[in-house]
């Protein structure tokens, strides 16, 4: 394992230290926690937005703390959900009395830890609600199983919910906006290489030089198929077609996110964008806006994900409001 770390067990603490020092003008860390909050939190009259998850997905989630997005990000160990006591601290710190919305990616651990925190907060008299993001179409959706995972589409949920919360909307209204995004967003990714969790010291799986894994999650979970290396055009088509098979975006207008998994150059991501836009036009889908870059990574995994969000007037309006975060513009 070759990584820029001091000690594998200290990566999260060291990262958080560096993070708050680098961005002290706009955010701070609640002492003795792994919670990053907006410098001005709690904001009077505004619904507080809290998200988070394991580390290793940077800039998620702390990079999305700021005006027009989150009030707090709760940071767990690498690829491990933060614990309820930490989430509770975040909830308490951002609640101004208007209530708090938790934005949770659909993983068993994340959902349980955030739900426990919500119960603890409610016991302290704070109104808490939640939305669960499950945009990954690589996993079959079913009420009988854990269901689809939450991946890069989560960032767009943060953004729209954050914009609506800035207007002074009620908790119910912010939740409604977030759920609209969840209903309309789909993503899928693929990996060219695996990633190595620092404490584990070895890659979570192995791919040969000429192999790619279609449908990987953001923790190096297995995908749906392992195939020989293809062209950018073929890879993009594979993901787009699978997304369109899950949700019909024909004749709609979409926002696109091409997300790098940690070790894919922007050059390649723009090549993917070129292919994705061309494919969408072929399907009669108009593009409203695009984001190309690293938004929800998986340590140093090479690969990318494609996210599509059908936009209406309300979502477009939300996406065009001012946003001041480190990682999203």
């Amino acid at each position: 394992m070759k990584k820029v770390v001091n000690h594998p067990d200290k990566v999260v603490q060291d990262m958080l230290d560096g993070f708050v020092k680098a961005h002290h003008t706009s955010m701070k860390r609640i002492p003795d926690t792994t919670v990053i909050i907006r410098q001005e939190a709690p904001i009077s009259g505004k619904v507080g937005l809290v998200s988070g998850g394991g580390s290793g997905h940077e800039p998620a989630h702390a990079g999305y703390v700021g005006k027009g997005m989150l009030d707090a990000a709760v940071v767990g160990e690498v690829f491990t959900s933060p614990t309820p006591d930490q989430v509770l601290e975040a909830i308490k710190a951002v609640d101004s009395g208007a209530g708090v919305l938790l934005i949770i990616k659909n993983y068993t651990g994340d959902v349980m830890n955030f739900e426990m925190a919500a119960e603890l907060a409610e016991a302290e008299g704070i109104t808490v609600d939640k939305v669960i993001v499950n945009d990954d179409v690589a996993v079959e959706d079913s009420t009988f199983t854990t269901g689809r995972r939450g991946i890069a589409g989560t960032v767009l949920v943060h953004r729209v919910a954050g914009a609506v919360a800035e207007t002074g909307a009620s908790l119910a209204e912010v939740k409604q906006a977030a759920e609209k995004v969840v209903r309309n967003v789909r993503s899928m990714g693929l990996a060219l290489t695996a990633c190595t969790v620092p404490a584990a010291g070895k890659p979570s799986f192995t791919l040969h030089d000429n192999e790619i894994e279609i449908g990987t999650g953001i923790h190096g979970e297995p995908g749906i198929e392992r195939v020989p290396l293809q062209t950018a055009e073929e890879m993009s088509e594979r993901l787009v077609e699978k997304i369109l098979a899950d949700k019909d975006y024909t004749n709609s207008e979409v926002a696109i996110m091409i997300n790098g998994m940690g070790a894919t150059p922007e050059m390649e991501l723009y090549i993917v964008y070129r292919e994705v836009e061309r494919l969408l036009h072929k399907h009669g889908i108009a593009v409203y806006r695009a984001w190309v870059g690293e938004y929800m990574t998986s340590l140093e995994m090479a690969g990318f994900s494609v996210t599509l969000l059908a936009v209406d007037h309300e979502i477009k309006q939300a996406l065009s409001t001012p946003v001041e975060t480190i990682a999203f513009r």
Partner: protein
Amino acid sequence: MVILTVDQAKQWMIESQKKLVEHKEQLTTLDQAIGDGDHGINMARGFSEVVDKIEGTEYDTVADVLKSAAMTLTAKVGGASGPLYGTAFLKMAVSLQGKEVTAEAFVDAVDAGLEGIQTRGKAEFGEKTLFDVWYQVAAFLHSEPYDTWEGILEVCQAIIEDTREMVALRGRASYLKERSKGHIDPGSMSSFYIFQAFVDVLEWEKA
């Protein structure tokens, strides 16, 4: 008759920790096959924190010991196991609040723990999770006279073997669908060690 004293409750946690540390590699290997490979690490760490906490604390009741364990597990284990075991022990503690731990009270507490796991994990029996073990143990305790705690072990061993043939429907293993077959569920295995520790502590008393 009181079957579990405050000291025995502490011993239960200490024995659980020993077994989980001893079998850390095994649990991690099981989890690598169908999960994210950190179950042994997380459980050993979590129960070591529990032992650190309870060894240095005076308790008046068994409920207080279990509540302390619950809070520590919730805060230290992480992943899905932390909330599941944390909830199980918390519900047991609530069920035992203000009571001496008789066999009847303990069976009620296991029921409460089971219900907590179900509420938290939304699992049903047969979905290849630790709920399966708790479900079978509760069923056994309801069906047998209370002087046969060792019977818990056989019940656990049987259900653990059964999880091998199950397709996972909850948790990270569920992404593997059919490929989750052929592997024992790591959460069921760690629950076995916890119940085994409980039986050991009660058996010492007899010996």
